């Protein structure tokens, strides 16, 4: 199976090389979308045997994933995995997602940080993710344990049933996570959650938290209008 790993990266110069090298030990097709980084992210990985793509300006994680996914489809991908560039996602979890997808029980497999596997997730993050879960359940009527998970795998085969046209999101920022869930529900796609463990270190803890009140308000407004 032709598996492509899509990794959007923004200012990840310190760790991107390590992350990509690790991915290359198991997967031969890795697409890195440098989303207008201001550091040396591009230089760090340009020599690696990957598909490298660069946004001239920073558009957001969603845009990076969209560009990478469309490229992967153009290159004949059958399975596409979205992963983070900061090394939070473990290689064995990515493999678990692919195996689950290959079973054929779901159109999309999503990694969940809240399915039994313990991690060193900061409390602040736990609270915000709980609120995000509540938000998705209340307003979008979607039951999912980790609505903000960045690790997901889906079929993109041009021959078989491809999930991509049905989950092709429009948001360029972190709202794409919620939009994908909304599209899964709208198009009645089957999704399965797989337990994953995320490595949290100082760098990832200091990053801006994904769900913001402004984003939630805009999502709600969009839902009302659409």
């Amino acid at each position, binding site marked *: 199976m032709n598996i492509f790993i899509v990794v959007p990266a923004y200012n990840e110069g310190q760790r991107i090389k390590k992350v990509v090298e690790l991915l290359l030990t198991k997967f031969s097709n890795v697409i890195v979308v440098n989303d207008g980084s201001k550091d040396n992210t591009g230089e760090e990985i340009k020599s690696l045997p990957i598909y490298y*793509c*660069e*946004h*001239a300006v920073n*558009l957001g994680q969603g*845009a990076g994933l969209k*560009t990478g996914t469309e490229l992967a489809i153009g290159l004949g991908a059958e399975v596409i995995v979205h992963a983070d560039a900061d090394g939070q996602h473990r290689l064995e979890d990515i493999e678990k997602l692919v195996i689950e997808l290959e079973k054929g029980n779901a159109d999309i497999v999503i990694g969940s940080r809240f399915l039994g596997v313990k991690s060193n997730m900061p409390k602040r993050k736990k609270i915000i993710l709980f609120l995000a879960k509540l938000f998705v359940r209340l307003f979008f009527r979607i039951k999912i344990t980790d609505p903000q998970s960045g690790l997901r795998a889906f079929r993109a085969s041009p021959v078989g049933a491809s999930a991509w046209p049905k989950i092709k999101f429009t948001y360029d920022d972190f709202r794409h996570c919620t939009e994908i869930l909304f599209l899964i529900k709208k198009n009645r796609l089957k999704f399965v959650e797989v337990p994953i463990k995320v490595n949290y270190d100082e760098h990832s803890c200091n990053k801006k938290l994904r769900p913001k009140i402004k984003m939630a308000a805009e999502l709600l407004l969009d839902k009302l209008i659409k």
Partner: protein
Amino acid sequence: MSIIQLIIFLFVLIVIVKLIKRLRTRDISLPIFLLWLLFWIGAAAITWKTVILDRLADLVGVGRGADLVIYCSLLVLFYLIFRIFVRLDKQEKQISEIVRSIAKNNCDLAVREQRGERRNEDKK
């Protein structure tokens, strides 16, 4: 004539001169020019004869002419903010599409060069 009236007239005059310059350089179309010209002449007329404004206010049920100006200004400003917001959103999406498209094309080219497809095509 009061000082404020004088200031407003002067301002309107400057705006109309600028409008004419914009029309000459074709930065704005004739209908847009006429629309703004009418607006600013109207503003000057109201400033000159404040009675017009008071009569208008009476007609629509607002106490004072000045209040009518404030209400109308607020409405117009809110509408303009909405228009700007929509346009910004549209432009943001367009920029995103352009940036993504350039990135994909560049990557495609690099992949084709690596595979030597480009050289083969050049030979043909």
